[in-house]
């Protein structure tokens, strides 16, 4: 009996901790319910697990054609020329006097590439690319950076599985890091 009571008390404490975080106040009854269809339509953010990635697929060959048509005017014919951000190259440059931060040299997740191209590119017509086109462009840019080979087909399964070269080179903000003290 005593042990059961103690177990119950433990369970009660655990339940209290869980249910009291993070918020506790009663809802005010504001807002309207969002339908699953509506949420699906708006939910374009692609997390690192790629759960929100849509059906579709593409590879570097198709992506190269699209890149030339839609991207090269700003990012250069091979992604290295600019004038807008350089997308290709830079691996090995991050510790040099001229660090070059590109998709291949710097980005952590391939899902970010899909997310950003789909929501914000091309700059003169954001949101105008279809999922197949975005997969293809992502494949082209990853292939140009040596991350995948030219025949790899990217889709909602293969894209999130890619391990970007620089993935493990990030760490959480350690500041304050500069030990400035008032002068004597």
């Amino acid at each position, binding site marked *: 009996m005593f042990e059961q009571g103690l177990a119950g008390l433990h369970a009660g404490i655990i339940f209290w901790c869980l249910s009291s975080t993070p918020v506790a106040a009663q809802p005010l009854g504001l807002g*309207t319910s969002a339908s699953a269809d509506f*949420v699906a339509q708006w939910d374009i*953010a692609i997390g690192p697990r790629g759960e929100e990635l849509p059906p579709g697929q593409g590879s570097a060959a198709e992506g190269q054609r699209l890149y030339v048509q839609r991207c090269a005017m700003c990012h250069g014919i091979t992604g290295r020329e600019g*004038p807008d951000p350089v997308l290709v190259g830079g691996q090995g440059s991050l510790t040099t006097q001229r*660090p070059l931060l590109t998709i291949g040299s710097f980005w952590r997740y391939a899902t970010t590439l899909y*997310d950003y191209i789909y*929501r*914000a590119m091309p700059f003169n017509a954001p949101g105008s690319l279809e999922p197949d086109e975005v997969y293809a462009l992502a494949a082209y840019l990853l292939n140009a950076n040596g991350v995948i080979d030219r025949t790899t087909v990217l889709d909602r399964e293969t894209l999130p599985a890619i391990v970007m070269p620089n993935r493990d080179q*990030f760490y959480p903000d350690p500041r304050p890091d500069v030990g400035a003290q008032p002068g004597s």
Partner: protein
Amino acid sequence: MVSWVVDESGLAMNQRRKFLHRLRNLLTVGFAAGTGSALADTTKSQGAPLREYGSRSRFETIKRWITPARWPTSTASWTPLGELEGIITPSALHYERHHGGVPDIDPASHRLLVHGLVERELLFSMADLKRFPSMHRICFLECSGNGYPEWQKAVGANVQQTHGLTSCSDWAGVTLKDVLNEAGVLSEASWVVAEGADGAAMTRSVPLEKCLQDVILAYGQNGEALRPEQGYPLRLLVPGFEGSISVKWLRRLKVTDTPYYTREETSKYTDLMPDGRAREFSFVMEAKSVITAPSAGQVLYQPGFHEISGIAWSGRGRVKRVEVSVDNGESWREARLHGPVLPICHTRFTLPWEWDGSEVTIASRCHDETGYVQPTRTALQAVRGKHSFYHFNAIQNWRIDSQGRVHNV
């Protein structure tokens, strides 16, 4: 803006005698425009009629400075800190950093979706949001790129170009905590992904802990609705964090169990270190201060009394004290802090000073309530190298030459 008063003799003068050269300019204009008398007399006719929405005097011309860029919709404009008084930035002069231009949003058709790891996925109209308990708070907002050109050496021509990506407003809205509570955050949640309705659909991940602490869903700025360039009709306002996380034109909050590593928190807004690794989610804007008068581009036209004036701020809390050096950094004097001294807010400081007419370097140094002390550029470079970009908060030195001209050094 510089405030002017007219004394009994009719002479216009600077109430705080900070820009005496302006007095000279004004007198020159007065003589030139006079019709027989030395100074303009506006008492002999009716002035302009009343107007329903005001604007500044035609004699006031300060404006934001826009960084030249290939795309005019993806650049920054800088607040003219050297010409501002007090701590509030006029809404029309608040700095801007946009990634896809300023959308033109009818508030009647704007919605905020709250979904993800919540009990109830909810859609809010602006009218819905305004029914939540309201609050307001004066706090600064600073772009993490404020001062980026200064990392390696002094380059900005004036304080607008060195520090103008910080501004301070009275923000009004509702707490994000209340709105999240309405949806019912599930226990496994730890982040909130915020998305804007602009042409970049700007997206950042915010720690849930911060969201429940002090994040605001803001619809008001300095007593009226947000300006379009500040996110009208709704923006996130994350006190003390780098400005880009305060997503403007907010349309969606997705509650998640992971940050989403968006482009604006991986490719950009991360801090590359000399060892080739990079810091991520470096949110807090650390303590900083700058003397806004005298500052680069300004001129002290004669020796004698000058008030040194500036602003200080910290993303970690209140400014505790500000020291000013008027002897090339050899010694530091405590400046007067002008209240209110609010947490995560611009704080005005002043120090009376007699300039003897000789060349000198002046600087300010901020201490916040956590004990943090604003570092030198050398100290920052020693830890973060010379290729860092964001979060530059070094002590700013201004050199006054023997002609009274002020330079960025």
